[in-house]
């Protein structure tokens, strides 16, 4: 009895700390969801008009045909004051109901659309995030190890330039070179019509082929950020006393690089990485648009174009929740991976 109560006492600060963090996370989600609701509601434009204009300009329809088609969305547009809509949205949100799509897929629950899009986004952006992070920290560490050298200076400039190229430009270049010129990869969509979706090899192969260029575009754009951040972090660590001490002890340089420098230098990037996992759920609007990839980014683009309020809110709120949860996990894991923080807590 005594033992268990003292053990419980030992966990109390951790429990208190966790409860506090959880509460902050929930409050953050509440305010962010509220803010996004009012910002989206304040956006000019009406979904029916947006649909009409889209049909006129994109589908080359005459106004009357476009209007009669667009007005089919009218029954699904929420009525009442903004405050009333906010309260009912919030209640629905708490019950896991994100409303229905007004224009993109009229009458379809936003949740269903997200469930359909998220796996594609996780495949592309998730893989690209891991790949770019892995390559970025490797290159960044290497650059820091030779910092001040010609190669370091060259790579620093090179990555700064790459970082400033917009995503859609990289996507278009890759599409031209590998999609249309060499014809190595498909140019659109997530899979071909001649495969049967499911857990079968032809489908998996086809999906991988379709994901290759979107992943590569994301990696090219984001690897430079990770490399430059890792370089900066590593250069700081290199000046620490424990590195000098490890060198004096005669430890192999590979071990110093991986266990002493790499591990400590990667810590500041850990939070960014976790937040990136959260933002991953928002997809990559431009890359998905260029490759007609059916992820969340493409969904968000369609939602904004068509003023599909609840679809927009659905995507924003998924990002909000994912980012806040990622930050919470980062907070918890930080204590696990960095003993100094744990002791401090």
């Amino acid at each position, binding site marked *: 009895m005594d033992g268990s109560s003292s053990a419980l006492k030992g966990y109390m600060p951790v429990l208190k700390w966790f409860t506090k963090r959880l509460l902050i996370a929930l409050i953050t989600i509440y305010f962010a969801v509220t803010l996004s609701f009012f910002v989206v509601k304040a956006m*000019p434009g009406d979904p029916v008009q947006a649909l*009409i204009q889209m049909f006129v300009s994109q589908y*080359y329809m005459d106004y009357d045909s476009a209007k009669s088609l*667009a007005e*089919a969305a009218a029954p699904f547009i929420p009525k009442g004051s903004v405050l009333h809509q906010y309260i009912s949205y919030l209640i629905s949100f708490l019950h896991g109901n994100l409303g229905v799509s007004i224009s993109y897929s009229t009458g379809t629950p936003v949740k269903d659309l997200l469930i359909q899009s998220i796996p594609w986004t996780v495949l592309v952006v998730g893989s690209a995030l891991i790949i770019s992070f892995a390559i970025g920290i490797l290159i960044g560490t290497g650059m820091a190890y030779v910092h001040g050298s010609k190669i370091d200076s060259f790579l620093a400039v090179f990555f700064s330039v790459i970082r400033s190229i917009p995503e859609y430009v990289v996507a278009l270049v890759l599409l031209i070179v590998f999609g249309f010129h060499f014809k190595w990869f498909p140019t659109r*969509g997530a899979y071909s019509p001649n495969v049967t979706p499911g857990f079968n090899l032809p489908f998996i192969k086809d999906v991988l*082929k379709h994901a*290759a260029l979107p992943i590569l575009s994301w990696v090219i754009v984001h690897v430079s950020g990770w490399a430059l951040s890792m370089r900066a972090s590593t250069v700081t660590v290199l000046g620490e006393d424990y590195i000098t001490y490890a060198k004096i002890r005669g430890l192999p340089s590979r071990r110093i690089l991986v266990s002493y420098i790499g591990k400590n230098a990667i810590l500041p990037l850990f939070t960014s990485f976790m937040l990136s996992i959260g933002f991953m759920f928002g997809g990559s609007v431009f890359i998905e648009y260029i490759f007609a990839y059916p992820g969340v980014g493409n969904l968000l683009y369609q939602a904004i174009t068509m003023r599909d309020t609840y679809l927009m809110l659905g995507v924003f709120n998924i990002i909000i929740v994912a980012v806040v949860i990622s930050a919470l996990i980062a907070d918890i894991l930080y204590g696990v991976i960095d003993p100094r923080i744990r002791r401090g807590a």
Partner: protein
Amino acid sequence: MAGRKYVLAAILMVLVVLSATSATLPLVKAEQKKEVVLYTHGWWQPYPRNRYNPFAPRHIGLTGLVKERLAFWDKLNNKYEPWLAESWEFKENEKKVIIHLRKNVYWHDGQKFTAKDVWTTLMLYKLFNRPIWKYISDVKVIDDYTVEYDVKEWSYLLPYYLLYRDAEIVAPYHIYGKFAEQVAKAQSESELNNIRTELIKFEPKTVLGTGPFKFEKITTSEVVLVKFDKYWNADKIHIDKIVLPYITANEVGWLYYRSGQLDYDVFMMPPAVYDEIKKLPFAEVTKVYDLSGFAIVYNFKNPYLRDLRVREAIAYVIDKQKVAQAAGGSAFEPVDYPTGILKVVEDKWIGDIKSYLNPYNTNPSKAEELLKEAGFTKKNGKWYTPDGKVFKLSFVVPGGWTDWVAAAKEITDELKNFGIDVELRTPESSSYWSEDWYLGGNYDLAFDFFGAWMTYPWAAFNRIFIEVNDRPKSQIQGQDFEKFFENVKLGGPFSGTVNAMQLTEKLAVIWDPKEQKDTAQKLAWIVNHYLPIFPIAEKQLMIYYNVQHFKWPDPKTHFNLWQAAAGGHQEALGWMIINGYVQPNPSYWEATSTTPTPTTVVKTETQVKTETVTKTATATGTSTSAKTCGPAVLVALAIIPLLMRRRR
């Protein structure tokens, strides 16, 4: 631990190798080569819900390919040709229209197409307040192949709505009959609302039509249609399959053009791209009129713009040629006579009164003269109003409409150089087309469409004098606008005083060609003389087509078939296919191997030339390149050492 890493590395390696090796396989096998496939882009991706239901906003339409109308509307000649309807009778005295349907028509699920399907579609169109119901009061099934419409109001526009616009038969009775029956019995608006909501939520199993192609599947990358063997005109269909790749961006569309992976499409092209595509040996581009253009709208709420001399002065400052060039040289043509009448039918309607019309060629001195006459003064290069204020105008155009914004910038610069202070504003387009901006009359100068996608000039004048997007002109251009055009004095070849709004309404109902022409000419003269708007440039549609893969109708002799693409390029394609105008090019489709074969391509249009092209004879959009998946291998090379690293 180390074992797990090896397993991970091995899995990754296998996936990468699979991905790479699969790139070495041709997408279409040799034995499939003879299947004739035509590629034209589509707008649809799953989620399939709401894509199959023809009453949902983002449904898969495919008029002309999958679905058909009662008649085809030849836009150029304003004539109707039998399609699902074999013939029709307009009985003016009895206020009835009788439609005789084609007999050997089947829905794609094998059911016979009958008059009940027309009735079902029309009842559901009633539910959505389609314009046809302004002109008819009822639809009756006389027998399996005869439908009778009770006419409420005779109008020249009646055949347009009845045979073409609201005559796409999309709802078979055996699927949508229950909804149609409910509509027929509904007593109140709330009942209709419930039916509407239920109908939009309804999820049919597939896209259904009676057209030459049957919907096969939709994936994230394309929609696939296959030839319908029981089609009533199947003998003339020479294409086995139509693939509609999902392409969202013009830039990506151009890449498909360049690589020959599209056979027919209408992506907008700036001059440089247009020139490049035209030079491709396998490509041809035919320009047709979009049947619309953009015009400056003067807001009569602004007291200075109520003065005709000021409106004229602005018109004389603007260089229509330069503005059209700025909007996109290859896609816009400046108007010759700003009247609201479209160029493609200009000669037919106003050919004999052109000498009375003002082309408003750029003339800054004339503009100065007019402004001075209106009491304006010019000091230090700036114009001042008669009451001594700087003459300042807001100019509002929808943001994101890059062609319009570029044109508006050019006009702003021209007016500023002339000394009129213009502030250009570009609100987001859905906001622009709302009461916040244009439709609420919150502007001095704005852009609007003219021509309104119809060669019969009623639509154009209706947009100029009566309403835009259901909003009355008094809301858009001010109460004074209507007052001004209630009593306009005619001039030129005409005399007397007319009400322009009433004249426009008359144009909708009269059938006598002479009277139609006289009315249209009067309205054209009013627009040209009094400038309620100032039409600047007409848009052109650039139709790309692959002459290596298919033989197409010659635009010189069959321009009406190409012009039909305005407002529905897939429908125009469908009509060309149905009538046997699109045929596989034997030199391409009958090639027997994948070895390079010289192909002679004859390019039609303005310059007919023969070019010899060396190409690999495989189906469109296929690849036989035996290349490995380079980037995937690179990624693997980078990541595998990371997984396999050993801790010391």
